[in-house]
């Protein structure tokens, strides 16, 4: 039986109240008032689509062996690299085997579900198994644009396989239209859209019903046979129209997360799916639709296995884990929409030496440590000579990834001198659970969250961005967590 084995979600901790954006930019576009309800999720200064996809994928594979992963598909229209397979960075962070199938899906925002279909088909064909599909987006609207208000940042992931599936895959219907409602050229950072009324009436109101009807026809079903229906659109009028035309009961149509997160692009349908699966019961028939350069409609039926799935943060947990982003200009600086002066210290050139990065890629991406076979001491980074002074064994190590171990704060500071777009830079010593110590950046926290002895978990983040060469580097950081959460 082919289907979804697990799911995960990720919503960045910072939420920007849309009125804060409107308060700054409403002068330019007063009509944007109608888009200024609720809040949008905003990636932290050290997050992007890759890091968010990793977070969702880690949430998704909770309780599964990483060695079982047979493929990693990454979907995004805001990938940090055009050339350099972004999925391989995700795979590295997951410490997956490197002899697996990896692919990036992009172009239109339906790419998230297209990646899921590609995974389902590949598993169905017996060509791979246990494919992690992670979709994430971090799309930008220009200052004062509707998109700036409507888009949010987030990620979702599913594990596609043929054993113990929690949602059996029944089939799909797809369409692809060169209907350019939103676009970004190869050199553009900001979304550009055509008139809303045209998008709504000629795009969404036509293509989504077509996909749903197409799927129903294919399987001899009617929309009312589904217990949960997922389709993305932030146009309230379109939702009403689609529900009416298809005879959908509004309580079966899932929340579009617009008020709490915003439109997360390629991730959005999958994020809504993850939220739906949190509450799903065996026997539920789920209709999942994406929209953007066409549509994908997928049909799943929830199985008994959903009751056995290990608990995870998923969407609700991340929605609850929130903090206000207190100012709009921080958002502008973090997304590099406006230039900020980090002082001359911030101008020092930081090269990325790719041959070095390759040599150490398991350490950098996967947080590879080692464990001494002689004395059992776990250490990080991986050592050739055992760090235990009473042992000192040479080349007696076995690899051990420590990214999921977490640790405790050994020492800390909050540094105003270090060049950062999110000062003060917080970092300190961390004793890794099970052994080993390292100096790590702290993120998603304030100085008040730091104390010697406090537990931390590790999160894959942007280490530094080299604007001169457009290189994003990644490594792991520590997030203080409460004792109970450990």
């Amino acid at each position, binding site marked *: 039986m082919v289907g979804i084995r697990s799911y995960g979600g990720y919503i960045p901790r910072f939420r920007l109240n849309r009125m804060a954006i409107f308060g700054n930019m409403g002068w330019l576009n007063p009509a944007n008032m109608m888009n200024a309800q609720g809040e949008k999720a905003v990636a932290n200064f050290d997050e992007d689509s890759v890091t968010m996809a990793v977070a969702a994928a880690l949430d998704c594979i909770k309780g599964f062996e990483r060695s079982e992963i047979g493929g990693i598909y990454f979907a995004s229209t805001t990938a940090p690299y055009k050339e350099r397979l972004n999925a391989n960075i995700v795979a590295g962070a997951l410490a997956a085997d490197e002899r697996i199938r990896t692919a990036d899906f992009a172009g239109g925002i339906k790419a998230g579900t297209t990646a899921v279909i590609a995974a389902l088909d590949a598993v169905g064909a017996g060509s791979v198994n246990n494919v992690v599909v992670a979709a994430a987006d971090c799309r930008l609207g220009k200052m004062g644009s509707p998109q700036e208000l409507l888009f949010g940042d987030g990620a979702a992931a599913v594990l596609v396989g043929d054993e113990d599936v929690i949602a059996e895959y029944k089939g799909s219907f797809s369409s692809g239209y060169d209907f350019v409602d939103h676009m970004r050229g190869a050199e553009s950072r900001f979304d550009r859209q055509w008139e809303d009324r045209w998008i709504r009436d000629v795009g969404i109101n036509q293509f989504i019903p077509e996909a749903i009807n197409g799927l129903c026809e294919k399987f001899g079903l009617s929309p009312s046979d589904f217990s949960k229906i997922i389709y993305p659109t932030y146009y309230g009028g379109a939702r009403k129209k689609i529900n009416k035309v298809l005879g959908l009961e509004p309580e079966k149509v899932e929340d579009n997360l617009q008020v709490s997160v915003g439109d997360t692009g390629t991730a959005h349908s999958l994020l809504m799916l993850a939220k739906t699966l949190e509450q799903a019961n065996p026997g539920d028939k789920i209709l999942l639709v994406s929209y953007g350069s066409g549509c994908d409609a997928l049909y799943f039926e929830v199985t008994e296995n959903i009751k056995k799935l290990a608990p995870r943060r998923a969407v609700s947990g991340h929605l609850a884990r929130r903090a206000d982003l207190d100012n709009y200009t921080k958002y502008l600086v973090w997304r590099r929409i406006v230039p900020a002066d980090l*002082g*001359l*210290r911030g101008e*020092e050139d*930081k*090269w*990325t*030496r790719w041959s*070095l*990065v390759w040599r*150490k890629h398991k*350490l*950098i991406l996967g947080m590879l440590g080692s464990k001494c076979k002689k004395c059992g001491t776990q*250490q*990080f*980074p991986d*050592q050739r000579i055992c*760090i*235990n*002074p009473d042992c000192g064994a040479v080349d007696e190590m076995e690899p051990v990834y420590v990214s999921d171990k977490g640790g405790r704060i*050994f*020492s*800390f*500071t*909050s*540094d*105003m*001198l*270090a*060049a*950062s777009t999110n000062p*003060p*830079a917080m*970092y*300190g*010593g961390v*004793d890794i659970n099970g*052994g*080993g*110590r*390292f*100096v*790590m*950046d702290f993120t998603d926290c304030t*100085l008040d969250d730091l104390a*010697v*002895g406090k537990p931390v978990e590790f999160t894959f983040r942007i*280490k*530094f961005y080299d604007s001169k060469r457009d290189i994003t*580097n990644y*490594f792991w950081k520590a997030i203080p967590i409460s004792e109970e959460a450990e």
Partner: protein
Amino acid sequence: MAEGIKDKVVILGMGCTRFGERWDASPEDLLLEAFLECIEDAGIDKNDIQAAWLSTHIDEINVGKGGNFLGLTLHLPYLPITRTENFCASGTEAFRGACYGVASGAYDIALAVGIEKLKDTGYGGLPDSPAFGQMAQMIMPNATAPGMFAQLASAYSARYKIPMEKVKEAMTHVSWKSHQNGAKNPRAHLRRPVTKEQIMGSPMIAYPLGLFDCCGVSDGCACAVVTTPEIGSKIKPNEDLVKVKALQVSVSSGEEIWYNKWDGAGMITTRTAARKAYEEAGIKDPRKEINLMEVHDCFSITELVTMEDLGISEAGKAPEDILDGFFDLDGQIPCQSDGGLKCFGHPIGASGLRMLYEVYNQLLGRWPEERAVKDAQIGLTHNLGGVPNQNVCSVAIIGRD
């Protein structure tokens, strides 16, 4: 069995520039200022020097790599010149090189020079450079020196269960005391006495270090000429000679940063170098036998923990000694009688030699009454380079018989 360096080398002369923001002085000017004072004090001619060691830390914005700067500026006659770089211990390393050169019998007279021109960076604090190599840049925090040393305070407070307010009070006294001393020193970078309220209220640089917990970043140069006791007595027959009693260096093993045993509340390297230095110098009870110290007070917390690492204060008791005035100019062991890194300034490559310059002159009783340490016979200098979890420490002990 190694005998160590004790009494095998004497300091014949020393020189030191005024430290500070020497906007108008080139490295060549700074070198000449210190060197001319040094050879005059030594009573020798440039051509008597047989070998030289040059200490600089940040070559990129300073004088470049290698020993060439020294040879080219002083037009030394094709001498063996070696550049030493070992973080903030670089100056003491140049001195160690010169001393070992003389003690080995390879040379009669050797020169050690330390210089740093830091104020051409364009910004405050030390330059942002990949000091721990390219790999560190990929996985270590984009840390600054204050941020790394500040962590000593959080670990110290946790280790000895001393509230941060109390630690901060002692740190404040450390900086206050150095400002008191620096104000009296015409060569010091920062020459204004400040109140404890000013120190406490200064803007936060890296929690819990405020601006006044951090030393000055300066331009400067210091140098020493060393020789054997026999030659020294011939050149200066009627003068007291300052002898080298111990020179020790200790470098981190990786345990501090990667293993789980270090307490983070002091430096294992300092503890190691101090123990070996006392052994080399024949010192049994440093708290009683040492008369003055110049330690590496790059940050107030560094000086605080160093008092324990050097075995002067008991573990967890440095704050008490500090607040009791034990290390004040009129205390039992004056520490930083010249203002220290805090106020004399910290041109990295020069600092080790600057400390020796202060102790040397104090031992010879050359300083005016108001800032003299009376009847001092044994003095200690201490450098700590790198960052607490991966560092280089040097300890030097010099004395007058």
